């Protein structure tokens, strides 16, 4: 469903992504790992259409359609969802109004009428239980005054409401204690269907005990330097990234 071909992108005229290739099929879970600053979030940003990420080369195809021509909202309506690494606080926009607006845009896109208020509230209740988010939080403004963990749960709650086809979870595990991590993972797993896919971005293996990936990719300096099965994550957990970095630098030198 998602095909990334030789993707090069820059931010502020600085090369960040330097030729990414990635193929994600329905039903798959991919993990993208790598040290801080490798370009993991930038890759996610490129997929969801942040305008400061300037794509200089390559393609992002989603069900064979070129995504780069689409606005962020069109991408969202086609089923792409990003759980942000740093969800923004939006004082004055209530969670309820925000979610209702998002749900109704999605329904409109599918040619359906707006949801009745009672159905909407019922759905909210159901999904809140699923991801274990505190009921009081949804009476507040979007993310305003939420703790780090609450913000992450709120991302998954929105994902549960919107039921995307392709979900990208950017460091959803950071800031979560083990219990919160379990509930979040449980929520993500419960949302899994044969026709949707998940990309889990993390630099710890911990989350991958709960959301088990089919493929693991290591992103380093803007390139995927290694791909493998879930055992790759265990190797990284055990040995860290240094051996891979070394292997990569050596391969560069070797090719000179």
């Amino acid at each position: 469903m998602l095909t990334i071909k030789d993707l090069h992108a820059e931010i502020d005229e600085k090369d960040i992504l330097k030729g990414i290739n990635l193929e994600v099929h329905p039903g798959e879970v991919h993990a993208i790992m790598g040290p801080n600053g490798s370009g993991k979030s930038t890759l996610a940003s490129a997929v969801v259409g942040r305008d400061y990420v300037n794509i200089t080369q390559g393609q992002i195809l989603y069900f064979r359609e070129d995504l780069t021509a689409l606005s962020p909202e069109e991408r969202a309506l086609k089923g792409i969802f990003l759980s942000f690494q740093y969800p923004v606080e939006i004082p004055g926009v209530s969670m309820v109004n925000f979610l209702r607006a998002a749900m109704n845009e999605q329904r409109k896109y599918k040619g359906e009428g707006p949801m009745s208020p009672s159905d909407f509230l019922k759905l909210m209740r159901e999904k809140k239980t699923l991801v274990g988010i505190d009921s009081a939080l949804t009476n507040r403004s979007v993310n305003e005054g939420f703790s780090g963990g609450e913000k992450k749960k709120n991302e998954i709650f929105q994902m549960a409401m919107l039921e995307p086809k392709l979900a990208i979870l950017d460091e959803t595990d950071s800031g979560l204690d083990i219990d919160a991590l379990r509930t979040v993972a449980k929520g993500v797993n419960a949302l899994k269907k044969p026709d949707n896919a998940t990309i889990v971005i993390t630099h710890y293996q911990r989350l991958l005990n709960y959301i088990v990936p089919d493929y693991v990719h290591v992103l380093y300096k803007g390139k995927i330097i290694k791909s493998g099965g879930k055992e790759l994550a265990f190797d990284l957990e055990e040995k860290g990234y240094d051996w891979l970095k070394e292997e990569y630098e050596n391969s560069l030198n070797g090719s000179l």
Partner: protein
Amino acid sequence: MIVVEEKLPKHPDTRILERFDDGTGKNIHPVLDRVRATALKDFKRLGIPAGKNERYRYTAVGKLLDRPFVPLLHPHHRNFKVEEIFRCDIPTLDTLEFTVLNGFFFEEQETLMELPGGVLVGGLRQALKQVPQLAEAYLDNLSNTVNDGLVALNRAMATDGFFMYVPDGMVMDKPVQLVNLVKDDEDIMVQHRSLVILGKDAQAALLICDHALSEQKFISHGLMEVFVGENSAMEITKLQNEHNSMTDLSSLFIRQERNSRVRTNTISLHGGLIRNNLHVILQGEGAENQAYGLFLMDRKQHVDNSVFVDHAAPHCFSNQLYKGVLDDEATGAFDGKILVRPHAQKTEAFQVNKNILLTDHAKMNTKPQLEIYADDVKCTHGATVGQLDEEALFYLRSRGIHEYEARMLLMYAFAHEVIREIKIDPLQDRIHELVDKRLHGELPRCHTCLVDYHK
């Protein structure tokens, strides 16, 4: 005879007085005559505020008065009822409604309306006749304290307006609504003044709506003095929804006695040129003032809020929050000053002005000022001018909300911080609705003839 007059040193702006001086304003009431006499002196000294006047630096009111306009000094003959020309747009709100048309109190019955508990409401002229000792004791006590030529002009010219008296201990259950209407075939200038007196332990809410009913280049200046007695509470909401060739000047003076609480909310949705002076004196210990403002301007509209809060007693609290959104080539100014007098210890005073510019052509000038002469005080001020939060905008869009709607949500949220401070629920709901419509460009107003006399 003319030669003799020419010899006197005359402020050039006194030309304007000649345009007013047809004699009709005189001899209506001795108090008005007395006020006029001092006001004329003040005006001759001050003139119309010009560019070098700091307080009017961003609003060139002088140019306004160069235009041809007809000063309206006496009411036109009226053979219609207010309902025929105007219906209040807030139907769910149960208020006691009063109208000032072209600066003159509009009421079929002559006498002041007497409400349970001894509340009196009506026209200022009538009040001067009917309860002279009350009206005389208060009239012009606040407006004569400022060095502002526009205020002096109003004091010299205005002969009618609104009057309200709430006796000690009287808690009014319904808000009073004052609708200021302007309607004429000519470009008239309207000057009116109002007087509101609350005794001790009293409570009242006043909603003031400024409307222009025809599209002439009107100039309207409404001055209001509000006296709030010990332990009393007052909420004033002002709604300005006018057209692009309207000039709406407003000067609101408030004096608060011990432990009184006043909240003002100034909501400016449309208007060619809007200038709001708010002058608050915290006279008694423990008085509390909350001043909120929201302005949403577009095209070449101009809005200027000038707020002055005078902490003249210890242990008082004041808070100002003014927020604005400027679109297209709209311009705005905020000039807020907190004065803490030497003996006003334990003062707490806060002031914030936040603005969003939606285009590169919109412009905002903001000048928060503190002048503190007491040492044991807590005062802060701050101002921001910026764009909509790009991060927040992207967040909303990434959930499938179209950019236009996302912007609306953010602007609405920005405005909400002020609107939520309107404590009369149906009014708050209605203003929410109006602001929402305004942001979506669905609020009716006149689209013709932009004002061309502001910077």
